[in-house]
């Protein structure tokens, strides 16, 4: 563990200013991922700017019918929130499918979005990793990659993003609100994460010193019928092999609208735009769901150790949508 300075920011503006002066600094919120990385040497910051006490811990309605989630709302509190549970059940389910109770009590909304990959090579400083040490190589491609990506990866990196919450949020068209040295900006979550390309060390489009302050959820009336389905090697306390976040709006057996995202398969929470396009206006049948899944997975580039994810993702996506239809039928 390298020595670092610790500063407790008095407000958001000074937090941003403190970090702006220190290129090797990072924000500290719940610390559930960062503290592990400090111990392992994966992260060696010069400065920790503690933002955990800043007043971004509220869940508030927005005038346009949406919801604003403070970046420091704890995962446990978000999952337990009545509005989230009733209007965005997929988000509550995604949160409760992640980590453990103890971790959720500490982990924040913003920190959850900024988790880093659990690729075993990334987390071990004795091995090469392009994400951790650019240009050092990627042992995962020809090594252990059971949990790694089939979509969106590059020659340089096949890491997956580990968050469950982010998969639900990307399905819901969430918008990340950011405060930076140049002021505020809003970034749609679908644009927030980068694909690795030649620069796998950069997970997101955030610039140094930018602070997440909130996540806005637009109103989505049919999200009341939504589901997050996570498949993993162990029934709890494990990252997704494949997960599906889905919200479905069906009338007269035709898909009026749909939101779909996949987790555990790509370097970012994967909004399934191709599958959505196939389904809008199409009959709400298992066959169509299968075609939609196949459209989404057509570009999959599986490796020997994760090829199972292609049929698994198809199967989970189809079953999740079928289950939502079944719910629709019993809840007129």
């Amino acid at each position, binding site marked *: *563990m*390298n*020595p670092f300075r610790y500063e407790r920011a008095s407000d958001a503006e000074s937090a941003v200013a403190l970090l702006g002066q220190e290129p090797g600094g990072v924000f500290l919120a719940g610390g559930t991922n960062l503290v592990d990385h400090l*111990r*392992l*040497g994966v992260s060696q910051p010069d400065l920790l700017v503690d933002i955990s006490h800043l007043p971004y811990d509220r869940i508030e309605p927005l005038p346009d019918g949406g919801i604003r989630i403070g970046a420091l709302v704890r995962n446990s509190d978000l999952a337990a929130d009545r509005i989230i549970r009733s209007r965005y059940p997929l988000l509550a389910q995604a949160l409760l499918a992640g980590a453990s109770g103890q971790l959720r009590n500490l982990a924040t909304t913003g920190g959850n979005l900024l988790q880093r990959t*659990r690729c*075993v*090579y990334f*987390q*071990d*400083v*004795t*091995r090469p990793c392009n994400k951790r040490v650019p240009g050092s190589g990627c*042992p995962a491609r*020809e*090594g*252990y990659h059971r*949990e790694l990506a089939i979509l969106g990866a590059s020659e340089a990196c096949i890491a997956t993003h580990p968050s469950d919450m982010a998969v639900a949020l990307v399905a819901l068209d969430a918008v990340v609100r950011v405060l930076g040295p140049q002021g505020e900006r809003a970034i749609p979550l679908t644009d927030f994460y980068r694909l690795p390309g030649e620069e796998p060390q950069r997970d997101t489009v955030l610039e140094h010193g930018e602070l997440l302050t909130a996540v806005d959820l637009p109103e989505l009336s049919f999200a009341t019928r939504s589901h997050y389905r996570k*498949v993993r*090697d*162990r*029934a*709890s*306390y*494990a*990252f997704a092999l494949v997960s599906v976040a889905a919200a479905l709006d069906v009338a007269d057996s035709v898909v009026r609208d749909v939101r779909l995202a996949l987790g555990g398969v790509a370097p970012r929470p994967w909004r399934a735009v191709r599958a959505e396009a196939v389904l809008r206006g199409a009959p709400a049948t298992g066959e169509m769901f299968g075609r939609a899944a196949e459209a989404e997975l057509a570009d999959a580039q599986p490796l020997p150790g994760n090829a199972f994810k292609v049929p*698994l993702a198809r*199967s*989970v996506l*189809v*079953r999740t949508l079928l289950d939502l239809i079944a719910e629709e039928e019993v809840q007129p």
Partner: protein
Amino acid sequence: MTMPSTRRASGAPLNRLDGVQKVTGAAKYAYEYPVDHVTYVFPVQSTIAKGRVVSIDASAARALPGVIAVLSHENAPQLAPVNDAKLAVFQSEAIAYRGQFVAAVVAETLEMARQGALLVVVGYEEQPHDVELRADRPDLYTPQIVNPFYQSDTASGDVETALAQAPVSLDSVYTTPAEHPNPLEPHTTVAVWNEDSVTLYDANQGPHPIRDTVATAFKLPPERVRVISKYVGGAFGSKVDTHPHVILAVMAAQVARRPVKLALTRQQMYALAGYRSPTIQRLQLGAQRAGQLTAIAHDVVEQTATIHEFADPTAVPTRVMYAAPNRRTTHRLARLDVPATAWMRAPGECPGMFALESAMDELAIACGLDPIELRIRNEPAVDPESGRPFSSRNLVACLREGAQRFGWQPRDPTPRLRREGRWLIGSGVAASSYPALQFPAAALVKVDQAGNYQVRIDAIDIGTGAWTALTQIAADALEVPPERVQLGIGDTSLPQALWATASTGTASWGWAIFNAASALRARLQEEFGGSVPAEGLEATGTFQANPEAQQYAMHAFGAQFAEVRVNMDTGEVRVPRLLGVFAAGHIINPKTARSQFLGGMTWGLSMALHEESVLDPRFGDYVNHDFAESDVMI
């Protein structure tokens, strides 16, 4: 040897005597002992699997504030050889596995030591390593013995002819992956030198053997080494042997001239605390159409490290399970440049029984028999290989009792017949077996005039309930309530005993305590007419071996039943029901014994569904080395 029939404490489901201390945090684990002027040591591990260290640049580490010493083969004290080469810490520049200690930093704080370790630059001359276990390797060899003292190979009759002539036969290969023991408490040692003696607070499964190894390595008389291990947070075999970190802690404290604390990280444990070898097992069974076995052959290939030979007795349970006139068991090892294998939860028996019982299930299908009926038809009258009678067996009784309690129905073995929603439902049964072994032990019992007894033995409680069970045994042997007995264990200043391992503890320590208590009661009657003298009275007792172990085959047996559900869409596996029925001898404490059985079953479930340590052959070590990436049952 007969225990008194008027039992009061034994057989009672006493709560753990150490339970409150443990859940309130008052029970001190090794690393938690406060010591004055303490320092911390953090190791630097080899990043190559084979070769030698050619340079160590510790200048940056030494320049750090708070760093007291940097140890390596360049400056380490010379150790005396012990019978395990991996304990020759810093005695040469040779590298035999990835993760081996190549240097270590002693500093005022753990964080400083860890930072210093990151700054040590080690130069290597790397040689090609060989880490891949295959059954067709030409260099497989037969070990002298398999653990702890079994013949590597056994054979009787004519297996090949019997297999060729069998109306029903089966030839299958079963593989199991490497698995790490992963106790919750990591391996820790606190070393405190006082002139020419050293005290260790250490997490282990047997303080006396650790003491002897440390004494040999550091050229000390054993009485100058004291090992204290009052509470241990799980072990699963990984704390039986002395591992390199114990030597490192003692050495670091010697060089720093200060007490030293060392705790392996979870990641370090994957290379430095032992693990179960992967296995490749070929099972050949020949049977009559009605299921009676005519031949059993169980041929095992497993790995051992180049630095230290360790041979799991994987096929040994096959020697006692089922009757068959023609039989063979073999063990072959591949010597690889891997971290050293060692004891882990039913070492050998666990993967071996998986293969044998899987083969028996397949044979049941081939014979059109219920798997319980097949096992009953092959129940041996005596130990099939030694010809000795079993001291007790009761496997058939376990199977029948379990079948009734579980609701076992003779069923069509065709897959995918039973469903509920999107879940396919299956049920399975398997037999369990474990040898009933004992080790020598000694105990001391004291009484004062108030009628309070002190029982002293270097036994150890690794979470099994020994504190409680031994107190119950002592209370009964002394014919007093357990409250009158104060037990002392986990300290080499107490009378010598061996490990908490191989399910031998209670059966070994208990007899030493019983014999000491009997000796005390005899002395009290014969020399003092039954009244305790003013200065109190004490007596010792020992246990050497059970003479009946030469006459009988002694094993525990059991039957396990599982209901397993597999999701049709996702392949997810769920196990809503497990039932175990065991014939495990005289139960001292039903509550802690039940916990032990539940623990064994849970780890069996974990092994079946989850545990797999993944070796990356390019690096030569295990890459999924934490609880997030290496699933264990939780």
